[in-house]
Structures are given as C-alpha cells and as structure tokens.
C-alpha cells in the first residue's frame, strides 16, 4: 500500500501528501511521512569493517540490527558533527529498517499537488532522479526526496545487489 503510493508519487512527480522535513547542511528536505518509523537521537554505533565512510555502522534498535547512514557525508553537505541535536530518522523502506543521520528534523508539512513543482536539473547535491519535486512552504523551498528509491539504489550500498 505504502509502496504503491510511493511509486504513484514518483510517476506523477506532483503527488501531494504529508512530508517530514529535515535539514542537511543549509538545505531543507522533505520525505514521505509514511516511511518514517521513529525519530531518535544519535547513539554510539558499531562500525562495519571495510564499508563506505557514510555508513556509520549498525545499532541495536530493540533487538533489531539497523544500519545507520549519514547523508551529510554521503552528499558532502555541511559538517558531520555529532552532538545532542543530531537526529536519526528511522525509516521503513523496501521492507527494511534503515536509520538516516540528519542535522535536524523541523516539521511535518502537508503539501497540495499544486505546491509541488518539477525539479530543474542541478537541483541539489542529490542526483535529480531521487527527487520527486520541489515544494514551496512559506517562501521556503523544500526538496522532496524519493527516499525509497534513494536507499535502495546501488550507490548507497545498503543491500546485497544481485551480481
């Protein structure tokens, strides 16, 4: 059901809905609220040998082992500091649980389809294929990310890819 919605949004690129907004460096992003499981502070992680630098490691989330990625490192956005304000968004994507480190979580915003505009090329540090559109809320631009596509992409190296 959730997946259907996701792909629908992705097809039309202008699907409205509720978005969780978060910041990475100076940029404001939005992701489908339905993908979010919980939000928690940054805790010590267990490092994984020979993994890319943006994969911080894994944590124990009530008995489930969850990988944590830091998007600031992945997209070279701002300083990757870890302090009491650093937030991890735990989300459910393609049947998996993944944690994403962001600078802060701001709000939950409802966007109508007409508030969402198509993405020009070179929109942000993210590859435009993972961006479903740009939203405008109170004169602020919101980059809407197709988090499912992004997290399951080969470049995130989060999943075993069929050879």
């Amino acid at each position, binding site marked *: 059901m959730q997946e259907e919605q996701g792909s629908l949004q992705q097809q039309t690129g202008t699907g409205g809905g509720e978005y969780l907004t978060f910041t990475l460096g100076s940029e404001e992003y939005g992701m489908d609220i339905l993908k979010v499981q919980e939000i928690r502070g940054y805790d010590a992680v267990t*490092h994984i*040998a020979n993994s890319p630098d943006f994969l911080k490691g*894994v*944590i*124990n989330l009530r008995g*489930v*082992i969850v990988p944590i990625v830091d998007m600031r490192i992945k997209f070279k956005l701002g300083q990757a500091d870890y302090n009491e304000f650093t937030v991890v968004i735990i989300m459910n994507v393609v049947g*998996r649980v*993944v944690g994403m480190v962001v600078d802060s979580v701001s709000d939950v915003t409802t966007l109508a389809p007409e508030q969402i505009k198509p993405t020009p090329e070179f929109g942000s540090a993210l590859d435009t294929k993972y961006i479903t559109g740009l939203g405008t809320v109170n004169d602020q631009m919101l980059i809407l990310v197709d988090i499912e596509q992004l997290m399951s992409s080969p470049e995130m190296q989060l999943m075993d890819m069929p050879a």
Partner: protein
Amino acid sequence: MTQERMESGEIDLNRFNQVFFEECGEHLAEMEQILLSLSDGKPDEEQLNAVFRAAHSIKGGAGIFGFQDMTVVTHIMESLLDRVRNHEIPFTTAMIDLFLEAGDVIAMQLAGHRDGAEVRQEAVDQISSKLRQYIDEKTAVIGTDVTESDVTPAANATAELQSGCRLFEMEFTPDPDIFKRGVRLEQLFLELESLGELTINAEMSPIPDFSMFDPEICATSWHFTLKTTANEEDIREIFEFVADEDQLNIRVIPDQQGSDHHGDSARTVALSVTQAPPVQTAALPPSGNASGMSPGRRAADKNETAPGAFGRRGSEADSSIRVGVTKVDQLINQVGELVITQAMLAQAAAGVDPVQYENLHRGLLQLERNTRDLQQSVMSIRLVPISVVFNRFPRMVRDLSAKLGKQVELKTIGDSTELDKGLIEKISDPLTHLVRNCLDHALELPDVRIAAGKEAVGTITLRASQMGGRIVIDVLDDGAGLNRGRILGKAVERGLLVSDTMTDDEVWQLIFAPGFSTADAVTDISGRGVGMDVVLRNVNSMGGRVQIASESGKGTRVTISLPLTLAILEGISVSVGEEKFIFPLSSIVESIQPKPESLKTVNGRQVVHVRGEYIAVLPLYGMFNLQTAITEPDRGILVLVEVEEERAAILVDTLLDELQVVIKSLEENYRKVEGTSGATILGDGKVALILDVAALIDLGKKWSGKEAARQIE
C-alpha cells in the same frame, strides 16, 4: 462497489488450503513409509489400516477443499485397500509398487495445486486404470473361487458377476440436525439418481404433531431402491460427508429370496432407530449382508468419522500441536532479548557490594539460571529429528537401485539426532545429491562386486550424530571409491590447476569444482556435474563443512558437519581498539601470547611458530581497517583458529569473555559483511559482529598479499 464488497465477503480458502497441503504431505509420507516397511513381509492388519487411513484422510481433505481430481485416485486406491484388508484380495508385493506409484501421482497433483506445478493427466489416468484393473480382476477371480473368501457372500459376488446391475436397498436416517449443518438433501438425491434407476420413499411417521413441529429439525427418514452398475463404495461415497455409518444402511438385494427376510428385519431395526438412543444403534451387530463390510472397516471408520460431518477427522489423539514457524521464531527472539537484558542486569550489579546486597546477587544468579533453561527449552522447539530427512531415502534407493540393476541396502544410524528445522529443510537437497551419487557412481553392479570379492549387495549408510556443538552427518558407501587418476585426468581436461604431487585430500576437493563430473555417461540420475558444487555451496551457506575420505575399492565417506542451530552460538568475545567481535568457539583451537622470538616473517608476511608449526598471522585491525594501539603480535593475543584443515593466527588486542550469543542477521536490514557471519547484541546493548573464520582466512590471504606488496614497494 458492490462487487468489491462481495469479493471481500468471500471466505479466503487459501489459508485453509495451506493446512490441507501440509497434512496431505504428511499423510503421503506416512503412507510411503509404511508401504516400504511392508516390502517383503506379510502386512499386518494395523499397517494396512494405517495406509487406508492415510488414503482416506487425503481423499476427505481433497473433497472438502474442492480438489476433486485428487479424490479420484485416492478413492480407487482406498477401494482396493479396503478389499485387501478384508481379505477379498490377497496382498502382493506388486501392490506396493502400485500404491507407491499412486502416492507419487497424488503428490504430483498436490504439487499442482500448491505450487502450480505441471500435472500429467495421463499418469493419473494410467494409475487409476491400473488400480481399477486390480480391483476388477481380483474380485472376479475370488468370486469364482468361493472358498478362498469367507467374507464376501457368494450370492453377492455372483449377483455382481451375472449382470452388471445390482439392486440396492438403502435406509437413510439422518441425524435431526442435518438441516442446520447446511446439507442439501435434494443434491444428494440427484447424485444418487445419476447412478441408476432410483425410487425414493420418505418415511414420515416419526414427524411429530404440528404443534410440536420444528422445521429446522429433520424427522424424516428415507428408503431408496437403486438399480445400478455402481458398487456399494460409490454409494457410500455420495453419503460420505452427510451420514455417519449408523445412519445409513445399504443392502444388496440378491436374486435368491432367502436373505431377503434378513433385509426386512434390518429395515425395521433401522426405522426404529429414530427413537432409540444412538448408543444402541452402534451396538447393533452389522448386518451380515451389508456386502463386503467387515466389522474391521466399521471400527476403523468410526475413528475417522467424527460426528460433526464437516469437521476434521483426527484419528489419533496426537499429543503435539501445530504452530507456525514465525511464532516460534518470535518466541526465540524474545527469549534472546531476555538473555541480553539479564546480561545487562548482571553487568550493572557487578559493581554493587555483594555483602550488603546479597539478596540481589542471589536473585540475579537465579535469574541467570532460569533464563538459560528457558532459552534451551525454547531452542529445542525448533529441533526436529533427522529421521524426517532420512525417511525419504529408502524409497529413492529402492527405485534407483531397481532402475540401475544394482542391489543396495540402505542403513540409517542416529535417526533421532535432532537438528534445527531450518537446517533440516536445507540439508535434504545436498543429502539427496550425495545418496544419488553413491547409487549411480560409487556402488558397482552385483557381478563387479562379486568379482572384487565383495558382497553382491552394496551398502549405503547414513549416520547422524552430535559432536560437541555440531551435528555430523556421514554418507558412507562400500563402493569403488574415488578414482584419483580419473579425477586428475578430468581436472586437466577442464583446465584446472593440478599436479601429480597433490595429496589425496586435495584431489578429492577437486570434485567440488562447478561442473565437475567423472561419469562417462550422463544418466538421468546423475553425472551432469551439477551436484558436488551445489552440495558444497548449500552446506557452506548453513555454516557447515564437507569432507571426503575415500579408499580405492573400499568405499567413500562424505562427512557433513553442521552447527547445531542457526540461532545461538557459543563464542568468545575479543576486542580490537574500540570494537568488539565474537569468535565462534567451535573454530578456536587455542589462544596464545606469543614470545617475540617465535615470530618470523616469510616473504614479508608474518608467521608464528607454535609447537613445530608455522602459522600465518592475520591482524584483525589490518583486515578490518580498525584503529588500535596494539599492532605487534607480541603485545596482543593470537587466536589460533582452524577450519577445513586450514589454520591461522588472528591478532586481537585482548580476549574478553566466553558467552552464548543470539545470532542476528545483518542482511535483514543491511547486507553481508565480508569476514562475518552475522551480528549479535552484547550485554551492554551494543552490536558486535560475529566472525566467520573461514571467510576471515580468505580475507586475510587477500589482505596479506596486498600488504606484502605494499611493503615491498
């Protein structure tokens, strides 16, 4: 919109189907097992009854779930079995084959329904006609030779033989609640009519006064006369889920007038039944004329036919329950969490003064014991005896050896050895490959064996045993053994790197190469060279190892060793810098603090000299790219590990603790990490990676190669 609602209102039969598939599979397996055990001896009543019950249950279930095609074969099979068990038809060994074949056909139909596999209708028709032929032929033979059968009345048999048609008289007294169960009697009457000429008379006298009349209660009984070519079984079939044994009375009306009187008396009895309590009805002696219905059949059916006609017929009061694997896994996970919590508590309490808080410490000790017991009990739920797998082989060996013209005896030892259910499912394929190989390649034809001074009958032994934390399964044969020369020859042909100086063990390892086969001809049994590599891969994926020992002319032994369970591991925690890792205890030989003089370098690679052996040193910090202060072997600890005869000394900072850990999958939310087999959660709630020693040694080889190259630069 309305359509949608209607759809959702329908009962989803699929989830019930699953239960039927499972049960049907079990019944088939049971049937096969009994049939195989019958091989030469005379079957006793109980065994035949068991086979009959299995066939009957499959038929019943298939009928309920609407798999009509499956009822066809089972029905005929049941008819034949019924006659065998009533001594109408003598039991022959040829029948075993026939029944086994029928079982296969049913299994095929089952697979068709369950997995959408292809069903060969001609096979179904073939077996049906074969079975039917048996019934017809044998009945005819015995019908003429009256003395051989004391159960079938001669009159009955001759009546059947003279004309195709027989006249049946039936009394049907349904139980009063039949309407409430939603049985449609008119349907039943139509079905009966389709068999032949039918006359129906309703017996209305038991209907009470209008004032007392309840339209939902059935007070009527019926009297049918049916002229048909069908036999009594077919008629009973129609009543199968409608009437219990004592509600239906069927008689053949013979030509002679003699036994008609008996039939009359039976009818009066049946009519009076409506008022009499059912216990009395059951106590009535079965009518001697109810053709071919021995008391045995009635008694057996009583068990299966529980009153609620549509209920499941559980014959044996089984003392086990069926629980979904997910539920068990959930339980195991939760207990795993409990163990972690307990460890956390123990750690937190370690700093508390034991004198002042003696009670707390005692309680925690108790908790530790209890959680450990609980964990063990929960883990044992998943354990299944390996006989589940072993039981598949007698049939295979029997069929294949007949096909190959070999004489083979299969022995199984340690059937009750228990193994995790997940492993049981995965081990079955590799074992099948191995047994096939034994049959096809290893064991020789009888004359070859005699010429070699061996017994004509070859032996395949399957042996399971528990050794420490592992389950060891041996597949032994007393065949020709592996042929070193031929394997080397094939290897050269295939362009593999070999030399004549290789040890036997190294040569045997070659047969695990993909596509390797020394068979001269590809048979439909094996020889295609897909096999041993699959065996190795499957076993490795379970954390198991395969070893081969072979002696020319004497035989071959393939040993598979598997971890006891996939969920729990005995391990030792070690630390490197900030990180902790778990070594599986089973792979550790010893751990040492090396003296500087025992450390040497070979070609830029470090080795340690332990008791006359040089073992490569693989620093964990290097392989895993970790930060640590201890980079020299003589300042840390070397953990000596061994897998598949390969040894390595892995450098870590310190050893921490020996512990039991619950294995968690990294792949569930992440992906496989090289050199590890999973992860676990330690007492402090942190995640630690579990090292896969075999993979670690491979990783170490790559790493030390690179490292050596870097140093040379």
